[in-house]
């Protein structure tokens, strides 16, 4: 009799335990809160772990909306729209726009114009902004290139001046900056583990809840599947690839990464450039710049600055990886026979 009572009590306790496990998920460290939002021409997935996850995820989505409003080239009351339509007059912009533009201009300078925020008129001429694709003639490109020069864009505190015939676009750095800002919101809300995926960019805070690193796969630029996986903690991973947006004309492939030196799609031997570093903005800026610079230019830049690591996939299918991520990059099985070079200092 007593045994039965004990068995009954035990079963009841067990059932209650299981039930409570379902009813109160937020209290556990490995429980996550997730949000998906369409912004900046992509889908953004925010995931924050721990008891403050829900609050942090909601705050992150609000921040994304705010940043899109500031950086969009098409929303007609955005900061960028305003500076592009001021006919050379100074415009007062938000703190975010000022911070991101000055950081972007710094990378334009460091990369000697491989990254150029003022290449937007050329991008438009190719139809990449409207998907109304065309191949501009050489003289049209020359004419447009005369209007491309980041050094003529002035950013003094919150005052920005873009010359009358020029236009800027922060598309190459906006998602990176957004990732940085979301990590800040996570920290402000007491979150120590989280991740955001912003359509091709990934940024992580801390480690996974079980203490292991985040495993980020790099998409195969030549087809289905992945090139491999890189393990990161507290870092952003950003890839630029020609396959992301392109069109074909007369058997020729034209992709959206424009070389500001030629006004044409950058074809310097790289088909995918991945950057890993603690700063999302830096990753975003350099993934575009190193794609344009090619393998030699990328190596030179890395040797000079070195505050990041990179992985390139070249036209012939070979992989180049810098030493800082060489031992935390695992190549996928179907890429194991590709040539892999580690660049060391």
């Amino acid at each position: 009799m007593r045994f039965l009572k004990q068995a009954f009590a035990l079963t009841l306790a067990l059932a209650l335990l299981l039930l409570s496990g379902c009813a109160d998920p937020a209290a556990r460290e490995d429980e996550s809160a997730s949000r998906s939002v369409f912004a900046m021409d992509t889908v953004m997935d925010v995931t924050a772990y721990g008891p403050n996850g829900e609050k942090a995820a909601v705050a992150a989505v609000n921040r994304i909306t705010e940043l899109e409003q500031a950086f969009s080239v098409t929303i007609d009351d955005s900061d960028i729209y305003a500076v592009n339509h001021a006919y050379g007059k100074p415009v007062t912009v938000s703190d975010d726009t000022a911070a991101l533009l000055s950081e972007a201009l710094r990378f334009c300078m460091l990369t000697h114009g491989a990254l150029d925020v003022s290449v937007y008129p050329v991008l438009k001429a190719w139809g990449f902004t409207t998907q109304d694709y065309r191949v501009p003639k050489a003289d049209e490109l020359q004419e447009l290139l005369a209007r491309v020069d980041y050094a003529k864009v002035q950013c003094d505190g919150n005052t920005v001046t873009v010359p009358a015939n020029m236009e800027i676009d922060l598309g190459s750095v906006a998602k990176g900056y957004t990732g940085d800002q979301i990590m800040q919101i996570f920290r402000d809300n007491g979150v120590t583990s989280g991740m955001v995926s912003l359509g091709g960019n990934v940024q992580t805070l801390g480690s996974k809840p079980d203490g292991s690193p985040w495993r980020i796969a790099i998409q195969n630029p030549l087809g289905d599947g992945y090139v491999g996986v890189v393990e990161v903690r507290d870092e952003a991973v950003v890839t630029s690839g020609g396959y992301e947006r392109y069109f074909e004309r007369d058997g020729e492939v034209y992709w959206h990464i424009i070389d500001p030196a030629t006004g044409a799609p950058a074809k310097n031997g790289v088909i995918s450039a991945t950057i890993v570093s603690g700063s999302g903005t830096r990753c975003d800026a350099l993934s575009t710049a190193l794609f344009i610079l090619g393998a030699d230019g990328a190596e030179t830049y890395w040797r000079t600055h070195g505050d990041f690591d990179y992985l390139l996939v070249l036209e012939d299918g070979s992989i180049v990886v810098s030493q800082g991520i060489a031992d935390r990059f695992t190549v996928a099985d179907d890429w194991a026979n590709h040539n892999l070079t580690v660049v060391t200092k």
Partner: protein
Amino acid sequence: MKKTSFWIILIAAVALLAGAAALWLHFHHPDAAVANIYLDGECIRSIDLNDVTEPEIFTVEGEIGTNTIQVEPGRIRVTHAECPDQICVQMGWLTSEGGMPIVCLPNKLVISLDDVPAKIGDAEIDGVVG
């Protein structure tokens, strides 16, 4: 006394059965692979790909037009889309093995296997860049 013990045994038996069932559900999800279909962030339909026996084709109405979705046992894809870039069509099948979500940006359509982690070989991955 007899009557009381009968009830105790009965309740204990029911509780034991319920507990066992709860445990089974807790640890033995029968390999569900639920594809959630979202339009502008709202889940409009959930399909367990491993429960599909009859192939099905249906359309959803998004912001700028329709997407035609095809479901077969263990997999789902977009076959037609009234959008300029056709990226969602090019993404091909999303299978119950897991993988990256199918996304149609112009129509704000997302098809994702929220509870099936993406994998490379046997190793799970947390995110994808590219």
